[in-house]
C-alpha cells in the first residue's frame, strides 16, 4: 500500500490511484522494430523508475511517479506534460 504524494492533492493512499503504464513517448515514425519496442519492451531498472499513474479517486489527473523498485520509496511525483518533440532513443 504505497502512499503517493499527488502533485495536485497531496499524499494519498495507493488505492486512490491506478497504475497507467510507463508513459513512453510515442514516436511520429517508427520501423517495425522500433514500434514493437514502444508497444512491448520496457526497462526494468533496479532503482528509480518513472511510471504513469492516474489519480482516479481524486483529481483524475495523470501524473508521473518516480519510484525506486528496490525500496518502493517515491522519489518524485510531477504532473504529466506532453512528451518531448524529439524522438527518444
Amino acid at each position: 500500500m504505497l502512499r503517493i504524494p499527488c502533485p495536485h492533492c497531496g499524499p494519498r493512499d495507493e488505492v486512490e490511484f491506478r497504475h497507467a503504464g510507463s508513459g513512453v513517448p510515442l514516436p511520429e515514425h517508427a520501423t517495425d522494430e522500433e514500434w514493437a519496442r514502444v508497444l512491448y519492451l520496457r526497462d526494468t531498472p533496479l532503482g528509480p523508475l518513472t511510471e504513469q499513474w492516474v489519480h482516479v479517486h481524486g483529481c483524475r489527473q495523470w501524473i508521473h511517479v518516480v519510484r525506486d523498485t528496490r525500496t518502493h520509496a517515491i522519489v518524485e511525483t510531477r504532473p504529466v506534460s506532453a512528451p518531448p518533440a524529439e524522438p527518444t532513443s
Partner: protein
Amino acid sequence: MKRLPDGGLGIDRTRPLAFTWNGTRLSGFAGDTLASALLGAGVRVRVLGTSVSAGRPRGIMSAGLEEATGFAQVARAPVEEPLVRTTALPLYEGLSAQGRIVKGALVPARDPSRFDWRYAHCDLLVVGAGPAGLAAALEGARAGARVIIADCAPVVGGTLRREARRIDGAPAEAWLAAVEHELRAAPDVTVLTGTTAVMPLDQNGMWLAQRVGGALPEAARGARPEQRLWQVRAQAIVLATGTLERPLVFPDNDRPGIMLAGAARHYLRQYALAPARGVLFTAHDDAYRTALAWHEAGVSVGAVIDLRPPGKGALRAAVHAAGIRVLNEAQVVGTDADAHGALCAVQVRAGGAMFALETDLLATSAGVDPNLHLHLHLGGTSTYDQRLGTAVPSAPLPGQSLAGAVTGRLTLADALAQGATTARAALGLAGEAAAPPTDDVDEDPPGLTWQVPAPDGDESRSFVDLHRDATVAGIVRAVDAGATHVEHVKRYTLVGTGVEQGRVAKVLAAALVAARAGHPAAVVGTSGSRPPVEPIPFHLVAGRAQGPRFEPVRTTALHAEHAALGAVFEPAGQWMRASRYPRPGETADDTVRREVRAARTGVALADVSTLGKLDVRGPDAAWVLDQLYVTPLASLPEGKARYAVLCHLDGSILDDGVVMRTGAHRYFVTTSTGHAAAVAEWMEEWLQTEWPDKRCWVTPVTEQFTTVAVVGPASRTLLAHVAPGLAVDRDTFPFLAVRTATVAGIANAQVARVSFSGELAYEVSVPWHDGPALWRALLAAGAPLGVTPYGLDALQVLRIEKGYLIVGQDTEALTTPHDAGLGWMVPTRKAFVGRRSLERIAPRAAGRAQLVGFRSHDPELVIPEGAALTSALGPPPMPIDGHVSSSRYSPTLACALGLALVRDGRARLGEVLHAPLLDGRVASVTLVDPVHYDPEGARRDGADHQ
C-alpha cells in the same frame, strides 16, 4: 500445574467466570487468558490435543507469541473461529471452546459478525507495550504528539508482568501503573491491547488487528465488531517488539508440562499457577529468575540444570544462595509421561551419571531471539550477533527505529533508555531522556548449544517445530540429502510453516543446519519472514465489503417497472438487468421465443439504459474523436449517427459503439455496457498526455439518461403515438438519424434510429428520472399493438441472429477490426490510434482467428459458449481451430446457432467443425456468414406503407 490459594496479580478472584472446554464446564477468573484458565483447571486439561503427524499429546508451552501448540476452536454462534491462540484470548463468561491444536475446522454457516476497518494517522506509532515501548510512548505523550501504542497481549507491560523488577527503587508495578495511567489520560494517545501489528506498509504504514467483540461475553458485545483492522500512517514508527524465548531441544521435549521458562514465571506471577514440583533446564542466566520465583512462592524446585559450566552471574549466585540444587554441564536427555501423556519425570545426565527427577513442569530456555519480523517484512536486514547466537537488526528502515530487547540489548535499563531516546529522535526533539535506574544485574554469556543429542541416537522425538512435528531427525535427513540452504530445509521438513510461522522454530532449525552442514551459523542465516505476523481471518481484511456490500448493485430508473412486470433479473457487470418477463405457464424458452417474435413481427421495448454514454464537446471534439476512433467522425454530419470502433495502440479492438453528432462541437458517444468509464479514461489519457493543447471535454453521462429501445415493424407507429410532433416517415427520419423531440410529454428527448436487432428501431433517451413516465406511456400507447417488454435473453438472440458482435465476448485481447469482419470501416488514409500496428498486422492475416457464424447440425442442441472447435476429431490432442463465442437457439430460424472465432474462418465457410462437449457428446456445426438473418438488411426500414 495448579492454582495457588493466593497471589496472581492479573486475576480478580472475586469474579469467577464459567467456561466450557471440550464440553466440560470449568471455572477461571476475570483476568485469565484461556490458556491460564485451562492450566489452572487441573490435570485433566493439560493435554490439549494430539499433533498431526506424530499423534503425540501436546499442551500449552508459552504465555505469548511463541505458542506453537496451545490453539483452540472457539464458538461464536453460528460459526466457530479456528486456530485461536489460547495465550492471547481473554477469558469471558460463557466462552466455549475445543482443543484443536493442529488445524481448525471450517463451519459452513455464514458469519454474521461485523469486521471493521479504521484509518488512523499519528506522529508516533509504537509497536509493543513492554518497557521500551512504554518509555517511547511516554516521551511522545509528554511532547504532546499524537501517539498510538499497540500490544498483542491483553494488558500492557510486556516482560515487566512476569517477574518482580524494580524501577527507580520501587516495584516495577508502580512504574507500570503510573505510566499506563498517564498514557490513557493523555488526549492524543491511543493505547491498544489485544492488538497485533500484523503487517507493515510502504511509506510508514502498519496494519493492526484488534480483537474487540471477540474478547467479550456474547451478551456484552452489542454492536461492536468482532475484530477491527487499523490502517495506520505514522510520521515515525518505533518497533519495540521485544524478544521471543527459545526452548531447548532434547528427546521427548514436546510433552504437556514442558514450557518456556519465562512463561512459567509469568503464569506464576500473574495467574498464581505453579507446579507441584518444577525443574528448570537452561543455557542462559535470565531463566534462573523462574527458579527464584518458584522458590519465593514456596514451590518445590527439583533442580536447575544448566548446559554451561559454572559461572559468576548474580542470578546464578542468588539461586545457589537460596539452596536450590544446581547441576552444571548437565543435560535433560529424555522425559517420561503419565497415563494421560503429560510430563511426570525427566531423565538427567550430570557428572557422568544418569538419574530421573520427578516433575510436572519442566521450564526450558535456550535464550531469546529478537522479534524482528515487522522489520524484516519490508526488507530490513539483520546481522548475526556472536554473543547471543542469534540475529539482531542492522540499520532500521527509513522513518522507523527499533528500541529495547529487539535490538539485542537485553537489560531493562537499555529498554527504558532506548525507548525514550528513539522516540525523542523520531519526533525531532532535542536533548537526552533521563532513564530511571533499574535492578539489572550482570549475567554470564548464554550458551550457544541448544540441542541435546539423544543417548540412543534416535532424534525422531526431538522436536524443533511443534506444530509441524518437524524433528532433529528430519533436519539431519534434509541436510544429508543435500539441502544445506535453510530455505530448502524449510520446504523439505516444513519447519517454520506452521501457525507459529517459525518465530521460534526456524532459529533452532538454522542452528541445527549450521551444525550438521559444518557452516558457521552467521553464514547460514534464517529463512525469510513474510506478513502477516499472526494469521488474520479473511473476514477482517474484507471488512464491511462482504455480502451485499462486496460490490455495488446498480439498477436503472426502470427497475421497479420491470419488477412489477415480473421480470427475472441477472447481473451484467454491476448492473441488474431484466433477463426476460415471463408470463404464467411459460418456460424460460417460451418467454424468450415470445419476446423475440414480438420484436421481429410487432413492437417490443427494452431498457438499454446501462449502455455507456459519454458527452464529448469542445471546439476540438471532432478532431479528438476522429483521431481516437478507427471510424471517420469529424465528417459525421449533425443529426447523424455512425457505428464506430476504438482500438488500442496495438491494433486490437478496445470498444465499439454508436457515435452521434448532436452539434458542431458536441457528440453523444455510446459504449458497451460497463465500458463507459474505461473509454472515458482512455480519452482523458490521450487528452492529458498527448494533446494537452486540445479543447475537448469528456463527461460520462450513463446515469443521466434512461434509454428505451422501441423495436419492431410497428415501432414507427408506436413512436408516432407518443411523439406526435415528430415526423417519423422513412424519408424524414432515415436510418442513423438523430432527432430531438417531445416524447410522452417529455421535452428535449433524443430519438435515434439505431438498431441492435436488425429491425426498424428507435432508441429514445430522456433524463434518468423521467424514465418511468416514458416507459409507462409506451406501454399504454402500445397496448393495442401488443407491445412486449423484452430482456437480455431475447436481446442476445436478436443480435446474434444478425451477427452483431459484443466486444469482450466475440472479440479477444488480440482481435483487430479486420479479424472481427469490420475491415470495411478501416479508412485508407485517416490517422487513428492503432493504425501503425494494423499496417503490420493486416498483411500478415494468415492464421488469425476471425469472426464467423455457425449453425448447429442438431437444431435443438445449443452449443455452450466457450466450446472449443476442432476440424480433426480423434484421440487427444486434437487441434483447436477456434471456439464458440456467442450461442443461442434462434426461433426465427428454428435452429441453434451463433458466432465463433475460428482460425482463417472467413476462408472456411461451409466447412464442418466439431465441438466435444463436457458431457461426452460431440456437437457438429457448419461455418456460415455471421449474419444469419436478413443479410440484405431489408427489414431495417420497416414496411413501405408506414
